[in-house]
């Protein structure tokens, strides 16, 4: 179960998406997420889905690998859907006991489900197709302007890259620790939430101990290899925009403009709607 979480993992293969400059991918993800909140009609959704599927297809990452990542946050997704389903006021569809489902509720729940799913899938594409080193390089350069304000961009980028590298290792370790404790009769499944939380102590203690030891070892190994912060470092793979990145930017911006154009009608009509409502309410 714990291995199903694919966020933060790198999927090794050769594809045009893999070869893109990480800055393109990062900006692309940001813009993609923004567009998700622009449109509120089926045409917009369809555009978003088509765009995402096209990117996934080009990336040569099996779609099953990406959807597997959703399993990890299934609880969050369901919770969002349920909350929106029951707590949105509006025209009543059905009502039982204290709960009421409204037409608006269904609409909002579906919209949220769509947005979250797309958001997770969209952002996992970046990590799946970009090595953490590359990703942090992208962040480092993309956020380079913060250096003017003395932001430790290089160090933060290095921290992120290391965190990403150790996620799979620590997950595997969690799995092994859980098995070791299961073999001693630990029970992670039965009981109420307090009992379940307590049952995790035998897993968390060894996990933290090991994580701290790893951190100490790693710091020593990095120092031994002359790491002394971001200053004075050179890059094995410096970021240089290529022709394909320009093409990607063109595609990306066309998609954004198209999204705005499709979404605009809805946004504008809602704007008038809200004005109208306010006017009536007055």
């Amino acid at each position: 179960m714990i291995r199903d979480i694919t966020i933060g993992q790198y999927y090794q293969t050769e594809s045009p998406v893999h070869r893109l400059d990480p800055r393109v991918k990062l900006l692309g993800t940001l813009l993609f997420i923004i567009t998700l909140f622009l449109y509120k009609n089926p045409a917009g959704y369809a555009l978003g889905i088509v765009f995402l599927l096209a990117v996934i297809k080009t990336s040569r990452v099996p779609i099953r690998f990406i959807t597997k990542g959703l399993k990890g946050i299934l609880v969050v997704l369901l919770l969002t859907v349920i909350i929106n389903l029951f707590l949105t006021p509006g025209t009543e569809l059905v009502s039982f006991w204290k709960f009421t489902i409204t037409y608006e509720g269904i609409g909002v729940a579906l919209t949220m489900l769509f947005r979250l799913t797309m958001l997770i899938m969209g952002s996992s594409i970046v990590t799946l197709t970009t090595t953490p080193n590359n990703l942090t390089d992208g962040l480092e350069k993309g956020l380079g302007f913060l250096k003017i304000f003395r932001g430790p961009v290089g160090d933060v980028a290095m921290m992120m890259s290391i965190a990403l590298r150790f996620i799979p290792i620590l997950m595997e370790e969690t799995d092994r620790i859980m098995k070791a404790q299961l073999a001693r009769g630990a029970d992670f499944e039965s009981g109420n939430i307090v009992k379940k939380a307590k049952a995790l102590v035998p897993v968390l203690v060894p996990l933290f101990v090991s994580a701290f030891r790893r951190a100490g070892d790693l710091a020593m190994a990095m120092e031994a290899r002359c790491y002394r912060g971001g200053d004075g470092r050179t890059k094995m793979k410096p970021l240089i925009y290529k022709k394909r990145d320009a093409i990607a930017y063109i595609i990306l911006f066309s998609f954004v403009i198209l999204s705005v154009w499709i979404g605009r009608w809805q946004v504008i009509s809602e704007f008038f709607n809200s004005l109208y409502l306010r006017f009536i309410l007055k």
Partner: protein
Amino acid sequence: MPLILDHVSQVYNPDTETPVRALDDVSLVLPEGQFIGIIGHTGSGKSTLVQHLNGLMMPTEGNVYYNGKDIADKDFNKKELRKHVGLVFQYPEHQLFETDVFADVCFGPKNMGLTKKEAELAAFDALRKVDFPNDLYYASVFELSGGQKRRAAIAGVLAMKPDFLVLDEPTAGLDPVGRYEILDMVSALHKESGMTIILVSHSMEDVAKYVERVIVMDRGKVAYDDTPREVFTHGEELEAMGLGIPESTRIARMLKDKGINVDPDVLTVTEAADSIYAAVTGNNK
């Protein structure tokens, strides 16, 4: 109560183009009272195999029976199985979590539903059985040496009073003296209590000296299942599996090939030295 594996297979990623058969049609009978070694190099399936013995992993094909019952049955009590089949993993650090050794050893018996008093008695008994130093019972688990951690981890499982004790690479990372101390302790445990001990290892030397039965795993299959002497007659095949035979045996065979009349089935340094000495002085006469 014997453990029986009946045509057990474990397939990872069955739906993909590259399914991995971590276990491939393994059938074994593990009776009570034996001292068994499971040998194989990394990736041979030996660690996967032992996780089937206490229900941490369930076979994707075939069945595992304990006490005549299929452990995959809905009403089968896995927690009860884990009490009878104790499994100690390779890294003791993965299991020790309490503030002191004694409290940690009590964790298993408490999970088995024993009262505090009973659990403490079981813990004392287990720590004594593994020759844990008396003055360290209440020491922090972080202050222990590698060998002591190993003993504490074994005691933690032993305190559940299992019928089977499965030890996954119990000597990894220890120095030679520490290695033999642990193995001698395990061997004594076997003699005194008569429980079945299953020793998982990649070291032929370790296994040859102690066990009565060797199960050699290779690419998910049982390659050999016999007495050490019998298994080590397959020197070349073992070499091909990345295992090799004990060095003493190898040297005896090399001498035999040179026409010196040495017993080619010796297992330990002492046996080899005795046999070589007898052969050489005999030849001199």
